[in-house]
C-alpha cells in the first residue's frame, strides 16, 4: 500500500475541530465579559476588558458546592451499584441457557431502547405512592433501574468475546463458579468493566430528566437542576456571563474523569471495542 503524506489534513482537522468546538470556546470567552458587553450587538470575539466577576460569583455560590457534591456522590454510587449488579447479570445471560433468558434480555433491551424521559412520569407516580419521591435513595434506585439495562448493553460484547474454552479449562482445574467469575472472567473483560463504569458515571452525572421528577428539595438537588433554576432566573436580565460560567463548570468533573480514563477509553475505541 502506498502511503500518502497529507500535511493539509492537519489544516482541515484544525478547521473542523474549531467549528465543532466553537460553542464551548465562544461561551468561555463570553463568560469573561461584563454584562454590558455580553448583551451588546454585534458581539465581540475577545472580551475588551477581562471581567472575572461572573466566575467569582459562581465560586462564591454555596448552592453550586452543595449541588455539585450531591451530583458527584449520586453518580458515583449509581455507577458503582449499577456496574456491580449488571456485570453478573450480563454474565449469566451471555453464558447460560435457561427458561426466562429471552424474557430477561427482552426486558433489558426494552428498557434500554425506551427513552428514560418517557419513563419518568410513570416512575414519578409510583415513587410518590411508595413515598420515595424527593429522597436521595429513591433517585439512586430509579437511576439504577434505568441505567442497569444500559450497562448490560455496554458490557455484553466484552463478555461475549471471551472464548468459552478458557472458562471450561478453569472449571476442569477445579475452580468454583465465583472463583471463575472473579479470577478469570473479570480480568479478561476489565476494559469493558471500566468503559461501562465510566459511561454510567457520566450519564448519571449529566442526567437532568430523571432528577427533575425525582428531586424537589433544594438540599438534595443535583447540579443540572440548579442550572435550570438559574437560567429561568437570570436569562431575562441578560446576565449571560453568570449562566455561562455555571454551565461550563458542569463540564469540569466529567473532563477530569475523562482524562483519568483516557488511555482505557482510547484503547477500547481503537480496538473497536464499542461494537455490539
Amino acid at each position, binding site marked *: 500500500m502506498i502511503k500518502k503524506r497529507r500535511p493539509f489534513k492537519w489544516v482541515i*482537522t484544525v478547521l*473542523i*475541530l474549531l467549528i465543532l*468546538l466553537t*460553542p*464551548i470556546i*465562544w*461561551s468561555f470567552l463570553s463568560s469573561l465579559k461584563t454584562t454590558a458587553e455580553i*448583551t451588546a*450587538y*454585534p*458581539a465581540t*470575539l475577545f472580551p475588551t476588558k477581562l471581567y472575572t466577576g461572573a466566575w467569582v460569583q459562581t465560586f462564591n455560590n454555596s448552592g453550586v458546592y452543595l449541588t455539585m457534591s450531591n451530583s458527584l456522590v449520586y453518580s458515583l454510587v449509581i455507577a458503582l451499584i449499577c456496574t456491580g449488579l449488571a456485570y*453478573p*447479570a450480563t*454474565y*449469566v445471560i451471555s453464558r*447460560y441457557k*435457561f427458561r426466562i433468558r429471552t424474557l*430477561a*434480555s427482552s*426486558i*433489558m*433491551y426494552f*428498557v*434500554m*431502547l*425506551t*427513552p428514560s*424521559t*418517557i*419513563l419518568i*412520569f*410513570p*416512575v*414519578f*407516580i409510583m415513587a410518590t*405512592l411508595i413515598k420515595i419521591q424527593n429522597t436521595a435513595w429513591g433517585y439512586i*434506585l430509579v437511576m439504577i*433501574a*434505568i441505567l442497569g439495562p444500559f450497562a448490560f448493553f455496554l458490557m455484553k460484547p466484552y463478555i461475549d468475546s471471551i472464548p468459552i474454552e478458557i472458562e471450561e479449562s478453569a472449571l476442569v482445574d477445579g475452580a468454583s463458579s465465583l472463583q471463575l467469575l472473579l479470577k478469570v472472567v473479570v480480568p479478561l473483560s476489565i476494559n469493558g468493566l471500566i468503559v461501562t463504569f465510566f459511561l454510567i458515571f457520566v450519564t448519571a452525572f*449529566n442526567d*437532568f430528566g430523571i432528577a*427533575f*421528577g425525582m428531586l424537589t428539595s433544594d438540599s438534595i438537588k443535583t447540579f*443540572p437542576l440548579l*442550572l*435550570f433554576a438559574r437560567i429561568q432566573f437570570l436569562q431575562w436580565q441578560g446576565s*449571560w456571563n453568570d*449562566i455561562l460560567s455555571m*454551565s461550563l463548570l458542569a463540564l469540569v468533573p466529567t473532563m477530569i474523569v*475523562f482524562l483519568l480514563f*483516557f488511555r482505557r477509553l*482510547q484503547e477500547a*475505541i481503537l480496538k*473497536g*471495542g*464499542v*461494537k*455490539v
Partner: protein
Amino acid sequence: MRWKLTLFLFPLLLVVSIFILVPIIIAIYVSVSESQAVFDFAFSGFRNYIYLFTEERFLNNIFVTFYISLLSIYLAYLVGLFLALYYRRATMVTNVTLATMMVIYLTMPATSAIIWRFLLDYSSGITSAILFYMGMERIDFFSSQFPALNALVLAIVWRQIAIATIFLWSGLQNINPEIDEAATLDGAARWERFRYITLPLLKKTSFITFILLAISSGSLVEFPLLMTAGGPFNSTETLILRLYREGFFSLNWGSASAVGVISLIISALAFIPLFRGILKT
C-alpha cells in the same frame, strides 16, 4: 445453576421490574382513570386520549417530535459517516479528532442547551455577529416556529455528530482493509468501493448508531425546555416537554399519563424492527 441465577441475575431484574415495569402499568391505569387519586379508581373511558387527539397543540407536539428526531438523526448520521471515513486510518490526527468528539459527547446536555441558546441569541449571539460582519440581516431564531425548530436541531446534531462519528469510526476499524485493497486492484472506483463494500459491511454498526442516535434525539427534555421553553406559543413543544409540563408543572396526572403512554407506544413502534434485529444477534 439455580442459585447462581438467583444471585447473579435477579437483583438487577427485580430493580428494573419494580421501578420500570410496574410504573408503566400504573401509568396506563391512571390514564384511563377519572380522578387523580390512584386508590380511588373510576373508569373514565378514554377521555384523556380523545381530548389529546382532538387538540391542535397535541398534534403539533407529535409533528415537532418527528421533525426534530428524523432531521437530527439523519443529519448526524451523514456527517458522522463522512467524518468517520475521512479519518478512517488511525493516525495522530484521528486520535485528536476522536478525543474532541468524546469531549463533545460528554458535555452535559443542559450545558449544551444553554450554550446554544446563547450562541443563537438575537442580540448577543455569534450568529448575529457573523451575519453583521458579513453585512447581512440578523436572524431571530426564537420568535417563529421553524427557525426555532432548526435551532433545536442544530444543538442536538452538534451532540449527535460526536456519537455517530465515534461509533461509525470504530465500526470501520473492524472492516478488513485488504478487502478494499483487493477491490482497488480490480479497478473499483472510490464511490463503488464505498457503495458496494464499505456500506454493506457497515450495516450492523449503522444499525447500532441509529439506535443510539434515536434514543438521545427527540427524547432529551433539556433542549426544548432550556432553549425555547416550547415557545413561541407552544410551537416547539415536543411530546416529552408536554409530558413534563402536564405532569410536573400543571400536575394533570391523567393527561400526563396519557401523553406518556402515547409516547411509549410511538417509541415502541419505532423500535420494534430494531428490537427484532438485536434479539437475532
